[in-house]
């Protein structure tokens, strides 16, 4: 590859935008964990807490940001008198994670190309 072509390729890679919501490591892990669910699947607050080993406060705070960004959709389910909140990734959330991952890969590719 010629040097100017190589530079253009690196510049193109670095144009991939980082998602401002997923820049936070905890939110990135949360979105990635939810990404593994099949379509229509959802994980409860307790399930997410166990999977990611987070405290209630920390998890609640970051889930709130993801819900407000439209990346995660909460649904409430009743089992007897007990209410459980389940969280599912939205299409926007899945797409945002893919873009963010592409941007992270671009950083690595750019470092290798330089």
């Amino acid at each position, binding site marked *: 590859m010629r040097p100017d072509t190589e530079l253009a390729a690196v510049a193109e890679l670095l144009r991939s935008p980082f998602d401002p919501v997923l820049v936070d490591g905890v939110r990135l892990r949360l979105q990635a964990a939810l*990404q*593994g669910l*099949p379509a229509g699947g959802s994980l409860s607050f307790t*399930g997410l807490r166990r999977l990611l080993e987070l405290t209630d406060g920390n998890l609640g705070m970051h889930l709130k940001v993801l819900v407000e960004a439209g990346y995660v959709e909460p649904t409430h389910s009743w089992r007897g008198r007990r209410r459980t909140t389940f969280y599912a990734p939205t299409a926007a959330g899945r797409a945002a994670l893919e873009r963010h991952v592409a941007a992270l*890969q671009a*950083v*690595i590719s750019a470092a290798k190309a330089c």
Partner: protein
Amino acid sequence: MAGSERSRAEPSPAEAAGLLAEVGRLPARTRRLAATKFTRVSLVAWGVAWVFGYAAVQLLPQPVGLGAFAVLGVGAVTLTRLGAPGELLSGWEAQFRRGWWVLIGVMPLLGLIVQPTPLPTLLLLLGALWGVALLLFAVTVSDRALGAVGLTIGWSLLCFGLVGGGAMAILGSSRLLHPA
């Protein structure tokens, strides 16, 4: 973009590699959790029902053996319903339930079609049908371990042929080679 903001938003190549490694692991972990949590109680319940049910049909006089198998089956249905994971909704629940009822509904029909058949052979046939259903479910949800189990059960007629026929062939060969 200011330098401090840029450094906060854009990780270094080493940080990016670390984040990518973790992001790559987490979806697989969730998929594993979804598959194992969704099936673990029902697999134990039905596994126990099969082990003791088949033994009861084989060893106990009829209809006691068949009744014992039916009781174990009802127990397995109950445990499957009670043991549904509370932390996770896989999104397959409705399809799984519908498919399961279709399977249950098809079984008596298959029983009628293959009549007259000895009861142990009929149960073996129904078991093989169950195994194929399990295999199809495993393929749908990409659960390799469950697929292997389904394949084993689906091939139970082959196993029956190999074990039963093999035993007869070995005994016959032994008698041919060492006549009394």
